[in-house]
């Protein structure tokens, strides 16, 4: 089922949490809402679920406007950041809750409930823990109970708020792979909120990058990394060197050298973002266009991070350590640099 968010605005008092946000999630897609805290990503997720009311705009699930529908009639699976498991109920009862509270005519029989809950507990690999209480489980196990509980109502869409936020790094990595696999199996349209870009890049089919209540870019992970749509995305996703430049006649000039841009009719100041691996390094030979000095070299496994002083600016460059040895460069040496690619944005 698809999710369509159309022109949603939401403010809390004077604070604008969402400013005219639109987003479409395709059927069966796993979408990440990525952004720093305060970017409005959790608010957007809660509005899709019906846990918050938008001030204006609408949310359609499978083409149906849900604005007027109460949360409990929406059949939206929601996994809360801190799981919010019912402490007074066993794991089994937690998962069965959504089935037991159905109106009498739609309620499955006890045997059917047991079958379905057992099946779900098998799916999240928690069969031996059915009789335990949430307090007796580890963080990762609680997370999986929360997921099984949300899936029990056969939700039209699955929404997860910072699903791995409260877990330690190792469990997080494990659970992430498992969720990816699970999503392939059940194939339900899902949206999850995260502030961890690694998580978004690894898990999501597409990422919606949010900042200050607006969506900056919606793209596949590689697209967002390779072709950031805005300055914010360039800075937020991975690391990029920020260089000021001047654009004229479609050419960006960085003092000593220049690069072609897409701006044919723009003349003025601009900002360029260059990934550390998009800067080439060579020995200085006297005919170089641009020359920098090596400030420091940090070995990071097979690659090395080289910090350069280039005029007033500092640049971070990633090179193979083998290549560095070949060049024979050490700290304090002058070197020649080339920029293979840059993302240039107008303004400063």
């Amino acid at each position: 089922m698809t999710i369509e968010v159309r022109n949603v605005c939401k403010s809390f008092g004077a604070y604008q949490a969402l400013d005219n946000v639109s987003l479409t999630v395709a059927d069966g897609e796993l979408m990440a809402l990525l952004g720093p805290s305060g970017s409005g990503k959790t608010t957007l997720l809660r509005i899709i679920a019906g846990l918050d009311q938008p001030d204006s705009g609408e949310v359609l699930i499978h083409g149906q406007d849900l604005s007027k529908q109460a949360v409990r009639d929406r059949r939206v699976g929601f996994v809360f950041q801190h799981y919010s498991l019912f402490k007074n109920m066993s794991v089994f009862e937690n998962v069965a809750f959504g089935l037991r509270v159905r109106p009498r005519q739609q309620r499955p029989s006890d045997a059917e409930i047991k079958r379905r809950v057992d099946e779900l507990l098998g799916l999240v690999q928690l069969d031996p823990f059915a009789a335990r209480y949430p307090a007796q489980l580890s963080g990762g196990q609680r997370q999986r109970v929360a997921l099984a509980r949300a899936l029990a109502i056969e939700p039209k869409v699955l929404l997860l708020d910072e699903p791995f936020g409260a877990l330690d790094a190792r469990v997080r990595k494990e659970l992430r792979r498992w969720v990816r696999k699970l999503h392939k199996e059940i194939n339900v349209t899902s949206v999850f909120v995260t502030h961890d870009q690694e998580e978004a890049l690894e898990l999501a089919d597409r990422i919606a990058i949010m900042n200050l209540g607006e969506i900056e870019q919606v793209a596949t992970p590689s697209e967002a990394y390779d072709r950031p749509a805005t300055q914010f995305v360039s800075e937020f996703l991975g690391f990029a060197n920020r260089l000021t430049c001047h654009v004229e006649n479609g050419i960006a000039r960085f003092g000593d050298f220049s690069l072609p841009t897409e701006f044919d009719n723009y003349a003025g100041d601009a900002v360029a973002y260059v990934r550390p691996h998009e800067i080439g390094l060579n020995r200085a030979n006297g005919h170089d266009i641009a020359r920098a000095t090596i400030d420091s070299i940090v070995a990071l496994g097979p690659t090395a991070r080289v910090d350069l002083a280039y005029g007033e600016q500092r640049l971070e460059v990633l090179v193979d350590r083998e290549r560095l040895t070949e060049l024979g460069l050490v700290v304090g040496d002058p070197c020649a640099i080339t920029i293979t690619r840059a993302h240039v944005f107008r303004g400063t």
Partner: protein
Amino acid sequence: MDRRDRPALRDPRWARGAIFVGGIGFLVLFVVLPLATVAVEAFAKGFELYLHALNDPDTISAIQMTLTVAAIAVPLNCIFGVAAAWAFGKFEFRGKTILLSLIDLPFSVSPVIAGMVFLLVFGLQGWFGGWLREHHIKIVFALPGLVLATIFVTLPFVARELIPLMQEQGTEEEEAARMLGAGGFRIFWSITLPNIKWALLYGVLLCNARAMGEFGAVSVVSGHIRGLTNTLPLQVDILYNEYNMVAAFATASLLAGLALITLAAKSFLEWRYADQLALTRR
């Protein structure tokens, strides 16, 4: 985020109505109407008779007695509360939990029993009854008995406000002062007291309200000697049993006024110093 903005938490209209009507109705019936009754009955025969009723020598001596009892009992319990809080709040020792629960004991003993235990110790048939009579010392049916019974029932008030607060505040500031060479009283006056003053005031307020209003315990040890061992609550009892309604309710109105002032001061402290009192609020 405010709870009210969350649609999933909104109670249905009928439930909101029922809770509002039920809750406010219950409070009106059991709190507002009794208060109103005191005022209406006290002024039933007009303002002049109200003043006249209060201007009775027995009532005036009851006021004096109440103030005297409170003036002795409250400071003593205050000193006790601070000493207990210093010992329990700043030090770790064995048996602390049991001793702590003993401090709360007076709250779970009937006021009547609280009064009666002093009869058993100091009364004519009591442990020291004979000795006291030989030396012409009166404890029960006299001021000391009233004070003792009042101290018993109000003993926990100050201590239970201060102990959790001082436990929470820890000992770092005091230890720092100690390292800088401050002596015990210096530490208490300059470090501890400023940190606990609002909670102390809060405890004193509650202690005082109960001390001035106590009925059961003092009733047992007072002997109801008019003009001598009557406190205000006992005076209300006597006047009421004489069917002197205006005087009984006029006297009661003084105590009700005291209660309202206490509540106002308490609410002010809770509102103004919420962070300091948060620990102790029941």
